[in-house]
């Protein structure tokens, strides 16, 4: 069995606020193995940032334990701070320093020679080098994120903790970023990453769905999709609003979510695709309906509504 890069057990964290406060984390447990990309997938406000900050030793949980690379996050925070690289959700480098100065500064702070550090992050740095005299505050979202990754990697951490690294970044840069993460994995860095994007979830080795401070499911993306218990029909080509209205009236669908220009429908038990086609033709016009494989998003919606019904 592989050892853990980040193992958290029954974490609870309540932020004091008006009216008693709400639980940001409500008994969260998972075990991210060494050498894998472990993704924490959930909507805004699910508790991702709180969890990442606990993993980065920045805040203490109310109860439960977090073990990072074998060290206890509460007691051994100084040890952990030397072996992890952390990238907060908000761009946190010095905006009034240049790319070069930021890298030089963080190299020194982490006790690495700048040259050694740059050699290590060469692949990413190469893309930044033409702009090295530019102030960090004037960079595009994608470049800022690459620079932040450079600074988080400069001391060759064992574990990268990335909190929503691709929020506010263009699609091409997001692709590039995930390619870089795959390469990091190849040289033996474990990655703990949070994201609200389902397409990114598919690029993780294992993911944990999180919603309202609770883990819904932890597994590999493939297994999660394979375990989806129901059929999915996909309807497209027409006005989405009318489609949803018609479905609601028909009593055929258990749930229906729009995904861009198409709609994923989870049919009620026994409802056939023919029934659905007929119904839609009557009331909503020209739709093409076909059975489709479940996506991670379908799985998340299903698990999330199941959780909500239970509580």
């Amino acid at each position, binding site marked *: 069995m592989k050892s853990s890069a980040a193992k958290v057990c029954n974490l609870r964290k309540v932020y004091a606020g008006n009216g008693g406060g709400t639980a940001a984390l409500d008994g969260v447990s998972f075990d991210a193995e060494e050498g894998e990309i472990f993704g924490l997938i959930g909507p805004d406000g699910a508790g991702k940032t709180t969890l990442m*900050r606990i993993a*980065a*030793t*920045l*805040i*203490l949980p109310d109860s439960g334990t977090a073990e990072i690379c074998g060290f206890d996050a509460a007691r051994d*925070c*100084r040890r952990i*701070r*030397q072996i*992890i690289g*952390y990238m*907060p959700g*908000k*761009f*946190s*480098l*010095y*905006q*009034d*320093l240049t790319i070069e*100065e930021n890298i*030089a*500064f*963080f190299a*020194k*702070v*982490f*006790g690495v020679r700048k040259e050694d550090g740059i050699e290590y992050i060469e692949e990413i740095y190469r893309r930044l080098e033409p702009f090295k005299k530019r102030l960090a505050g004037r960079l595009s979202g994608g470049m800022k994120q690459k620079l932040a990754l450079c*600074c*988080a990697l400069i001391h060759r951490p064992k574990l990268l903790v990335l909190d929503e690294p691709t929020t506010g970044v263009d699609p091409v840069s997001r692709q590039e970023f995930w390619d870089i993460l795959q390469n990091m994995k190849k040289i033996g860095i474990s990655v703990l990453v949070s994201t609200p994007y389902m397409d990114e979830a598919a690029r993780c080795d294992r993911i944990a769905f999180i919603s309202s401070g609770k883990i819904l499911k932890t597994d590999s993306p493939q297994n999660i999709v394979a375990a989806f218990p129901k059929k999915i029909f996909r309807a497209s080509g027409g006005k989405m609003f009318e489609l949803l209205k018609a479905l609601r009236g028909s009593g055929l669908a258990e749930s229906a979510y729009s995904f861009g220009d198409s709609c994923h429908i989870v049919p009620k038990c026994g409802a056939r695709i023919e029934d659905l086609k007929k119904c839609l033709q009557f009331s909503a016009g020209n739709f093409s309906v076909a059975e489709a494989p479940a996506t991670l998003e379908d799985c998340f919606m299903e698990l999330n509504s199941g959780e909500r019904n239970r509580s």
Partner: protein
Amino acid sequence: MEKFFAFVLKEFRQISRDRRSVAILFILPVLLLLLFGFAITNEIRESKFAVLDCDKSALSSAIAARIDASEYFSLCKSVQTKAEMEELLARGTVKTVVVFEADFEKKAACGESPQINIVLDAVDPNEAKNIYNYASAIASAEFAERFGRSAPFHGIDIRANMLFNPQLKSAYDFVPGVMGLILFLICTLMTSVGIVREKEMGNMEILLVSPMRPVYIIIAKVIPYFALSVLIVSGCLIIATAVFGIAIRGSVALIFGLSMLYTLLALTIGITVSTFVNTQQTAMFIATSVFMLPTVLLSGMIFPIENMPRLLQYVSEIVPAKWYISALRAVMIKGCGIALVAKNIAVMSAMILFFALLSLAKFKTRLE
């Protein structure tokens, strides 16, 4: 140690790139000094006066000439009648008329008190009082040189209560005050805002997750401001001597020592503020309202502490600038040695200790 210097270097870079703070750091002290020196001044300079000499003796004209010769007065006209005198004052041509009585020289020779009547335009009472003081000081000096005794004029005693500043030169008063204000402003405001900015921008979030100890982060943060304070103290002293002609009577080393101690105090206060607040705005608000206002109003910089109500006098005891300004005045202007300002040094040291312990107790190695 290398980490530490990297941080200090970074800090200098950031300061030099932030034009606003550089402007504050260098222009403000000069501006304030010049403003207090030239614009907001109640000093007397080349004030026009007239003479109504009913004696026309050698002594009376010698005294008039001496007043005219000083840099504070210039003789505008000699008048012959009271009506003429009153007209000049009413028109505002002169602010002052010096009147010698008819038997002026004769009385002086007999040992009686001769009378000089200084008639003043008292629309601005402070200025009038100043003019009266200057003129009578000059006249009595002339008188004393001739007769070897100080004579009372017009029944009003000229007291020697302006021992260290007989001409009420305001520069002696405001230079230590402005230094106390500037150093406090730069150190408390800039450090608290600077540290809080790292929190607000999220920099602290990364720095905390690094091998660098938070205490070093803070110390490295204040070093540039400390260095700048040394420059500012030098600058203020140069302006004080070169522009305002203040003679520094005490030891320059002691002045710097006191200033460093005071700077350190202001820095620890700045750090303490930064541990309590989370936004630059709040930091600025607290630094200005809680710390700046008392510094301006209660330190004795502008309003003399002796004239305050008893309660405010007690409050002024805990205003850091009070201890610095009074010590600086003592050393710079009266030439006191270290023994005479020992109490000030002790109080400031105690304050440093208090704020250092407070900020250490409040400092967090985590985010919340």
